[in-house]
């Protein structure tokens, strides 16, 4: 194994006492730990602790995230391969936005609960989840801008500006506060708001705010007018327009020089705030760094710096600026947080590093699985063979889906994920689906449907067997039979037919006539079952007084030898009433066959070992008696037929 990327996290098990040894066992998504008596004698502890890494799947609000993103995921897989790449790109971008809006919706709901709850623990827990989701959305948005949308120089900066604006919501809040005050221009946050607007490139709003200040200081009107002009004339690249990047660059340089000139002329020297704004517009790094609080993050600093120094930045140049901005912004002593290194990796276009760092930092595979899947569809991942044989996308999806399978409810979602892992998905599904607990028939039917649709016949058989055994244990023979028919399990069907027959022997009647009467071709599943159905048919025919048909059927049952041996006696005994009828029902051939069977049976009885116990002997002797009676009857029948033949009458069977 290679060296570890990070130190393993330590989890304390609060209920376990000090100094004890802990044993453990791995589960699919968790570890079971228990105290052992390995060393010192002492009383044992009867608790088992379940240590779970991923709590998120049990959060009711985050569940919506899993469900909605599943819906989006399934939709993504069905995008046709043969679309032209431009159309596909817009679709991928819109899918990416879908995912992000789902994250945002979840975030808002979590935030609402975190704010309104009275329980402190819940508030902190939800608050943490909100910040994690914020970070996730930030990263996803950046990946969308850089990788999926893959904007070239020009639009790239505009997208990055949007990205920063979206994730710095407090400016609008502050602005609202200022504007709602009695005299906005004298509010203590006023200049902060103006500078923040400028830093984000929101010049329209900045100008509107400045107007309020300008009206308060008529003496400085010219200065404000100058600033207003400068702000209004800053060129922004228009992607849909006819201007080329070079033309834009020229225009921008002109403007930049003009601003620089204003600075050199000391046009704003008398007003400290306007001077600061001018310096920002010219891209002075020191001034920007003085406003760290307003910028609050190094990536905001990065985008602002690019806006005012290199608006035509190319994607490949990003990482130089990113690295230097991060170094300039952050304290030399502070350790970069995981989020920072992830974003830096993104600016360096190192997708694999981004995915890897996210996998380590987050405790749930949701984010990396979905993002990687989307990037894979955009054909951005090189086929990166892992030691485990499958590619990165499949590995992450399998991990995510396996985690889902441990959830008592979300396992249904995991099925679709496994379906879309071509190499190992099927195998994983086969292993996992059998472990879903089946409390009700309805759930079993759903699981069965999943298995049948994917031709997992082993699993179908195993599930049906479980349900059939359960039914059998509760004496629901009809239910058990229908389960074994569904599984096409001949052996089990035989077992159940035997039970039916035993029931009949014990009680003298059949149960579940509806089922047996209506099996149709399903009765051919097993010999025993066929026998059962035909035997029941015989009884029906007898009750309807259709004796000759009944006789024919009975005889075929005897001669076909599909009856169990133990039943032969019963069958022959059933022939008795037919033989005792006034009319002769059996034909000569039929009586021959009857005799033959009877002789076979008698000989087998006689060869029974002498050491058999008393009850067996009693049975055997009663059987022999019945056999003798039968013999007499058959002989009588035969003679009746012979007489009839001699008299020339029509005897049955001719």
């Amino acid at each position, binding site marked *: 194994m290679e060296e570890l990327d990070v130190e393993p996290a330590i989890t304390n098990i609060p209920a376990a006492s000090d100094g004890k040894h802990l044993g453990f066992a791995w589960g699919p998504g968790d570890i079971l730990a228990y105290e052992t008596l390995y060393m010192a004698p002492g009383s044992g502890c009867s608790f088992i602790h379940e240590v779970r890494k991923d709590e998120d799947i049990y959060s*009711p*609000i985050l*569940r*919506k995230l899993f*469900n*909605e993103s*599943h*819906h989006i995921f*399934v*939709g993504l897989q*069905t995008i046709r391969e043969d679309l032209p790449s431009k159309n596909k790109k817009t679709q991928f971008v819109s899918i990416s936005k879908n995912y992000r809006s789902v994250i945002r919706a979840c975030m808002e709901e979590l935030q609402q609960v975190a704010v309104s709850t009275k329980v402190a623990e819940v508030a902190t827990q939800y608050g943490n989840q909100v910040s994690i989701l914020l970070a996730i959305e930030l990263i996803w948005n950046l990946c969308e801008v850089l990788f999926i949308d893959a904007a070239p120089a020009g639009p790239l900066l505009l997208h990055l500006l949007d990205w920063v604006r979206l994730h710095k919501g407090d400016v609008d809040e502050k602005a609202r506060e200022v504007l709602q005050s009695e005299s906005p221009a004298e509010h203590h946050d006023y200049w902060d708001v103006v500078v923040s607007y400028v830093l984000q490139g929101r010049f329209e709003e900045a100008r509107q705010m400045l107007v309020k200040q300008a009206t308060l200081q008529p003496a400085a009107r010219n200065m404000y007018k100058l600033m207003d002009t400068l702000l209004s004339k800053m060129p922004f690249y228009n992607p849909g327009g006819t201007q080329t990047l070079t033309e834009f660059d020229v225009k921008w340089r002109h403007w930049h020089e003009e601003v620089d000139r204003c600075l050199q002329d000391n046009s704003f020297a008398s007003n400290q705030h306007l001077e600061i704004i001018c310096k920002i517009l010219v891209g002075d790094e020191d001034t920007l760094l003085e406003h760290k609080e307003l910028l609050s993050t190094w990536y905001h600093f990065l985008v602002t710096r690019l806006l005012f120094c290199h608006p035509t930045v190319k994607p490949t140049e990003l990482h130089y600026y990113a690295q230097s901005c991060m170094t300039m912004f952050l304290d030399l002593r502070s350790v970069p947080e995981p989020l920072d290194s992830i974003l830096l990796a993104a600016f360096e276009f190192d997708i694999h590093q981004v995915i890897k760092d996210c996998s380590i930092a987050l405790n749930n595979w949701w984010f990396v699985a979905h993002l990687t899947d989307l990037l894979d569809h955009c054909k951005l991942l090189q086929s990166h063979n892992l030691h485990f044989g499958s590619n990165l996308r499949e590995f992450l999806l399998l991990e995510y889906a396996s985690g889902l399978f441990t959830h*008592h*409810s979300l396992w*249904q*979602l995991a099925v679709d994920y496994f379906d879309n892992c071509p190499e190992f998905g099927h195998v994983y599904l086969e292993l996992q689906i059998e472990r879903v607990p089946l*409390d*009700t*028939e*309805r*759930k079993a*039917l*759903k699981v069965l*449907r999943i298995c049948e*649709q994917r031709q997992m016949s082993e699993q179908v058989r195993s599930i049906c067997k479980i349900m059939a055994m359960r039914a059998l244990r*509760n*004496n*629901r*023979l*009809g*239910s058990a039979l*229908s389960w074994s*028919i569904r599984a096409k399990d001949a052996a089990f069907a035989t077992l159940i037919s035997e039970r039916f027959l035993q029931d009949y022997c014990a009680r003298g009647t059949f*149960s*579940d006539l*509806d*089922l047996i009467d*209506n*099996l*149709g*071709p*399903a009765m051919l599943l097993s010999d025993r079952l066929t026998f059962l159905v035909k035997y029941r048919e015989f009884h029906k025919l007898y009750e309807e007084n259709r004796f000759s048909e009944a006789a024919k059927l009975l005889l075929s049952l005897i001669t076909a030898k599909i009856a169990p041996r133990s039943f032969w006696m019963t069958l022959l005994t059933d022939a008795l009433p037919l033989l005792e009828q006034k009319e002769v029902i059996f034909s000569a051939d039929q009586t021959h066959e009857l005799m033959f069977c009877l002789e076979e049976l008698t000989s087998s009885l006689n060869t029974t070992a002498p050491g058999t116990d008393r009850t067996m002997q009693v049975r055997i002797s009663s059987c022999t008696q019945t056999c003798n009676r039968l013999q007499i009857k058959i002989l009588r029948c035969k003679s009746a037929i012979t007489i009839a033949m001699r008299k020339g009458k029509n005897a049955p069977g001719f």
Partner: protein
Amino acid sequence: MESVNAKYVSQKISKTRWRPVSHSSLQQPDIFATGSWDNEDNKISFWSIGNHGSSGMDEGFEGDPQLLCEHKHDGDVLDLQFLDQDRIVTTSSTGAVTIFRHHQNSQTISVSQRWPRVHRYPCDNAPCTGVVCSSPEIVTVGEDGKIIVFRADQEGVIRVIENADSSTIHAVTYLRTTEILTCILYLDDVLLPLHCVDRHPNQQHIVATGGQDGMLCVWDVRQGSTPFSLMEAHSAEMWEVHFHPTNPDHLFTCSEDGSLLHWETSTHSDMPSFLQGGRNNSMISRSAMAPAGGNQSLISTWLSGDSSKGRLETTHMLPSQTLSVNSLDVLGQCLVCGTDGEAIFVNRQVPV
């Protein structure tokens, strides 16, 4: 499809039912109840779609259903019915039958009555799979093959029909006030369990069923044991079938394959107009029904239909690729359904 929105509710929905509205009022239904399944803690919940004073709302307004209140439920909710305006009966996978009362003023739910473990095996609980009620009488069926009759206000069980079948009884409905129809198996070559049954609201001998293979069958219970018509509806188990209560030319089915179909028969041209449905006409049409064997045009089109004759139209009502739709209910112009994707869909403009 614009009027259909998904609301994700963090629980797999096994049953949804509209609260009944009184016949005389023209109100659209506004409250529905749902039951969940497969959770560690299952719940029943009441939701509102805010249809009060709906005439004053804008055309385009489609609010999400709002949760009014919820209550813990022991075991999966396998069936749920409204007993009256305030009470629902639920059946559970633990074999219990419970009546819950919804207190509208305080928006709380309390357990009004409970019969634990009425459906059971000698050594185990048996899930209770279906319930039908006609207040105050309640009839339940279960995997143990028993049919049990209760009264809402009495403690004990009124009557138990043991061993009604050795297989699981999946569904039950009232045929007449004194007869019930239970749903187990049917065959056409292959033995297949039936999962759901619904009776035509006006013509009580007509019954529609849905089965494990997704076939929709329409039967005439007076005539024998083969269905009148068989239609291929879905590619997987059909979980629920419902005739529209006031406009029975419309039928709705939902299935494990994730689709919800709306079936519409075209009516005979010579059918009198007052029989062609519409909310306020339901009372008139019942009393005006001539006895069977009379007027030919009164025989339901369901009995004569087979889809190849082109008299049947079906439309999908949900966006594709949802997980199994477990339950649906339709009342007036509103349709609600719940899925295994933990989503509820409400459609307020069903074209009936």
